[in-house]
């Protein structure tokens, strides 16, 4: 218990005096993390009603998920859209961040604002706007339509992440490469890009995840054969509680955690 008497900071306030703070913070952290985790053990229960802890441990609802044609189609759609979003948004966002970083333009401030717009406009507005546009172009329920919309939503995130990566990168290296004879493009591809690859990958992961989890635009723009997993989940939640959702949720949590760990690892390596 001597730890309680040790100073917690230079002002010599002890850990003991701060105990209440640690307890409150601990509770809040549990509030943040635990609820989502509840879903995991539940997905292994067999009963049709949600129960915790599961009386019988089984993979029944995972089976229900993998056997259902509708769910599998939705999964395929979601994954396809997410991967395509990753492939589209990552290079676009990276090049845009690079362009903004090297420009001495006054305009780059305004361009940056335009790039951040998707983060500022309420998603519902974007959703119905896009719906309206696609209705006119006949792109409702199309994969390409969804990919374009998701790429637009994810773009600012990629730009922000890559831009911050560029900030801690020494641009002089590119100048050295160019003075040694490399063209601007070559210098970027062979010198700069490999060194900011961690930021680029993190941005890409964010784009992937944004697309995978996106609900509102998908609600309007995907449907029928091309319904996404999020759209199906959302409708299911509104109507009745289907325990299949617990298993899907667990899988989604796993994906998130894996991506988060990967991104953190990349971040640490960079340090």
């Amino acid at each position, binding site marked *: 218990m001597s730890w309680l008497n040790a100073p*917690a*900071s230079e*002002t010599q306030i002890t850990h003991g005096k701060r105990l209440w*703070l*640690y307890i*409150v*913070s601990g509770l*809040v*952290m549990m*509030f*943040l*993390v635990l*609820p*989502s*985790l*509840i*879903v995991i053990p539940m997905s292994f229960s067999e009963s049709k009603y*949600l129960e915790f802890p599961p009386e019988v441990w089984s993979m029944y609802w995972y089976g229900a998920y993998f056997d259902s044609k509708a769910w599998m189609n939705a999964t395929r759609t979601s994954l396809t859209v997410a991967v395509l979003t990753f492939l589209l948004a990552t290079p*676009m966002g990276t*090049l*845009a961040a690079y*362009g*903004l970083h*090297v*420009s001495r*333009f006054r305009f780059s401030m305004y*361009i940056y604002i*335009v790039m951040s*717009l998707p983060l*500022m*406009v*309420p*998603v*519902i*507005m*974007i959703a*119905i*706007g*896009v*719906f*309206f*546009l696609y209705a006119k172009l006949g792109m409702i329920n199309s994969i390409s339509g969804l990919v*374009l919309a998701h*790429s*637009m939503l994810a773009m600012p995130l990629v730009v922000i992440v890559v831009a911050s990566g560029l900030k801690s990168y020494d641009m002089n290296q590119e100048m050295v490469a160019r003075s040694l004879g490399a063209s601007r493009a070559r210098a970027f591809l062979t010198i700069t890009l490999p060194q900011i690859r961690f930021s680029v990958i993190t941005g890409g992961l964010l784009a992937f995840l944004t697309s*995978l989890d996106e609900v*509102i635009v998908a*609600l309007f723009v995907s449907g029928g054969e091309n319904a996404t997993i999020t759209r199906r*989940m*959302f409708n299911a*939640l*509104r109507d009745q*509680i289907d325990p299949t*959702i617990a298993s899907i*949720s667990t899988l*989604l*949590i796993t994906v*998130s*955690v894996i991506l*988060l760990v990967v991104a953190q690892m990349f971040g640490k390596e960079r340090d």
Partner: protein
Amino acid sequence: MTAITQDAISDVSNEHGLRSDENRERWMVLGLCGPALFLIIIVMVVPVGWLFWLSFIGAEGSFSWENYERLWQSKSYARIFKITFEVAFVTTGICMLIGYPLTYMMSQLPRRAANIAMITVLLPFWTSLLVRTYAWLVLLQRKGLINGWLIDAGIIDTPLRLVHNFTGNIIGMSQIMLPFLVLPLYASMKAIDRDYLKAAANLGASPVAAFWRVFFPLSLPGLFAGMLLVFVISLGFFVTPVVLGGGRIIMVAMRVEKSISLYSNWGAASALAVVLLILTLACLVVAAKLLKLDKVQSGSGGSDG
């Protein structure tokens, strides 16, 4: 004489060449941003602009203010705005109350421990919104876990109504919004020089006095920015109120969706969306100004020497 004239000529052509080089440079930079800008303009700016236009088209198909008038006058819209603001205010308040102590503690931890604590904030952030909403549904139902435990522990006899109402919605939204408060507040707190607290202590302030007189005021810009962010996102929120509100909580975004999917009333929907957009942008501008204020206060502005 010839030499001078020749120099003069090549000077002029050099100037031309230099200027066109600089222009080419400008275009190249724009070119890099081009695809991204193009995408955003086509897929977002154009549709949103269209919506603006639509909001001014009345039932007759001609320019009219009637959509906005109806928003202003109709009782049902008034109720929707009232509930939306209530939800946003309460969520913001709760996030502030539980988020500040957590963020404060995190800001005082050594780097390793702070990184680990940050993961508990980032993890829900990266988890799907639907999953988190679903988890609350499961926890808060009549036959759900929380009621189950409370009944088993003998604290209550009949299940509490924790979901499909205002309470459930608030609980869910607070958890979902909390990272949006913690992250800007954390950045703001980390920027507060530790020497300020040492100086305060040296001048005679007990740890409590030093906190309230020095640390807290300096953390306010970050706190307000975080609160504005939570408020603004709550205003436009859709998924959670639908699921956890159970139809009793109708927020603006939900009404917009209903207007389109049920009534195809583009006029009403777009007017509502425009109002939401204006509120959002106003709050974001204020938040941005507060964060700039933060920078000036922490001493990176001002004269030197």
